[in-house]
C-alpha cells in the first residue's frame, strides 16, 4: 500500500519535527489554558454563570488554540523547499496533506480533549457534561484542523498571513462552534446531545472528504 505508506510517512515526519521542538506545541496548549482561566476572571466567579458559559467559552478557546498551530502547518516546509518536493513526489499530494493534517490534529486538537476535564472542573461542570464536552471536542477538533488547513494553504506566502488566516478561517468555524457548544448546552438543558453530535459527525465526514482536496488545490496555487 504505497498510499498508506506515504500517509504514515508524512504523519511520522511531522510528529517527529514537533517532538524535536516541543515548546511550539506547548505554547498553543498553554494558550488554551490561559484563555479559559482569564474568562472567569473577567466575567466573575459565580458558579451558575460559569456553568452557563463553560461550553461556549471552552469551544472558543479551542478554536483560537488550533488557529495558533495552523501557521506552522505548511509555512516551515514552504520556507525550506520541502513542500515543493512533496508536490513533485509520485504519491498524491492530497494523501501527504492528509497526513500533515492528522499530525496537526494529534498535536493541537487531541490534547485539548484531555485538558477539557481539568478546565471543565474550574467551570463547575458536572462529570456527565464534561464527558459530552470531551466527546464534542473529539469529533470537532479534527474538523477544525481540516478546515483550517485550507486557510493555511491559501495564505501561504501571502503578506501578513498569520492574521489573514484567522480572518479567513474563523467564519468557516462557526458551524463547528455552534454544534460543539450546542451539544453540551442542550445536554445540560436535558434535551440530549445526539442531534448536535450527529451533525458534528456529518460535518466531519464532509470535511474529511473535501478539505484535503481543497487544501491540495490551494497549495498548488500557492506554489505556482
Amino acid at each position, binding site marked *: 500500500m504505497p498510499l498508506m505508506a506515504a500517509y504514515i510517512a508524512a504523519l511520522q515526519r511531522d510528529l517527529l519535527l514537533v517532538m524535536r521542538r516541543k515548546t511550539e506545541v506547548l505554547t498553543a496548549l498553554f494558550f488554551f489554558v490561559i484563555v479559559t482561566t482569564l474568562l472567569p476572571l473577567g466575567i466573575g466567579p459565580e458558579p451558575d454563570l460559569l456553568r452557563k458559559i463553560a461550553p461556549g467559552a471552552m469551544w472558543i478557546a479551542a478554536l483560537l488554540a488550533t488557529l495558533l498551530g495552523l501557521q506552522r502547518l505548511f509555512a516551515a516546509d514552504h520556507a525550506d523547499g520541502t513542500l515543493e518536493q512533496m508536490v513533485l513526489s509520485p504519491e498524491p499530494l492530497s494523501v501527504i496533506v492528509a497526513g500533515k493534517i492528522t499530525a496537526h490534529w494529534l498535536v493541537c486538537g487531541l490534547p485539548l480533549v484531555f485538558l477539557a476535564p481539568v478546565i471543565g472542573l474550574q467551570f463547575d461542570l458536572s462529570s456527565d457534561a464534561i464527558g459530552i464536552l470531551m466527546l464534542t471536542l473529539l469529533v470537532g477538533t479534527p474538523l477544525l484542523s481540516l478546515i483550517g488547513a*485550507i486557510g493555511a494553504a*491559501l*495564505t501561504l*506566502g*501571502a*503578506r*501578513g*498571513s498569520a492574521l*489573514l488566516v484567522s*480572518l*479567513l478561517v*474563523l*467564519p*468557516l468555524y*462557526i*458551524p463547528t462552534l*455552534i*454544534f460543539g457548544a*450546542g451539544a453540551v*448546552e*442542550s445536554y445540560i438543558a436535558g434535551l440530549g446531545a445526539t442531534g448536535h453530535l450527529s*451533525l458534528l459527525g456529518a*460535518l466531519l465526514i464532509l470535511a474529511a472528504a*473535501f478539505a484535503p482536496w*481543497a487544501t491540495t*488545490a*490551494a497549495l498548488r*496555487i*500557492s506554489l*505556482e
Partner: protein
Amino acid sequence: MINWFKYSSPSSFYPLAGRLIPVFWMLAAILGAIGLYIGFFIAPTDAQQGEGYRIIFIHVPASWMSMFIYCVMAFWSLMGLTFNTRLSGMMTSALAPTGALFAFLSLWTGALWGKPMWGAWWVWDARLTSELILFFLYLGYMALHAAIDDPRRADRAGALLSLVGVVNVPIIYFSVKWWNTLHQGASVSLTRSPSMASTMLWGMLIMALAFWAYTIAVALMRARTIMLEREATSEWVKHLPDVKEIA
C-alpha cells in the same frame, strides 16, 4: 456554434464592457427612480409599521444582491479555475467590493429598521447573523486578494476561497438557524409578516433590478480598470483610442 470564449480575452472584452456600462447606468437610474417613486409615494402606509417600513425598498434588494453577488463570484471562480481564463478572476475581484457594500448596506438599513420596529438595533436572528457572516466572507476574500502580490495567484487563491465559502454559506445559515431556535430569546419572526400589498412587492422587485443594473455597471467599470492596470504593457492597451489620447 457561438464562440463563448471570444469575449473571455481582455482585449475583446474591454470595448464590449465600455459599450455596456452606459446602458446599465441608464437602466440603474431609470429603474431606481421608478422603484423609489413607488416606494415613497405610491406604496400604501403599512398598518402596523407606519412609514418606517419604507426602508425595506432599500434593505430587501440590498440583502438579495449581497447573496446573489456571492453566488456570481463563485460562478466566475469556477469558470476561472476550470477554463483558466484571466477575465474570470478580474470579474470576481471586481464584484467583491460591491457585494461587501450591499451586505453592509443590508445590515445598516436592517439596524435602522429594527430600532423602531423591534426596539433593538440588533437581534441574534438567523438571517441577521448569516448576513453578518457573509459580510465577513467578503472581507476575507478581499483581504486574501490584496495580500498576494502576484495578481494571477491572487485570483486563483481567491477563487478557491469563494468556492469554499459558497459551500459553507448554506451550512452556516442552517447552523445559525438551529442555534437560534435553541436559544429562543426575545422571539422576533421575520417570516410572520402580514400579507404584502402588491405595490410594495413591485417596488422591491424594481429596486432589486435597479441594484442589479448598478452592480453590473460598477463591476464592469472596475473590471476595466483592473484590465488596464494588469495589462498596461500589452499591445492592445497601447492601441486603445482613450489611452492614445492621453499619451
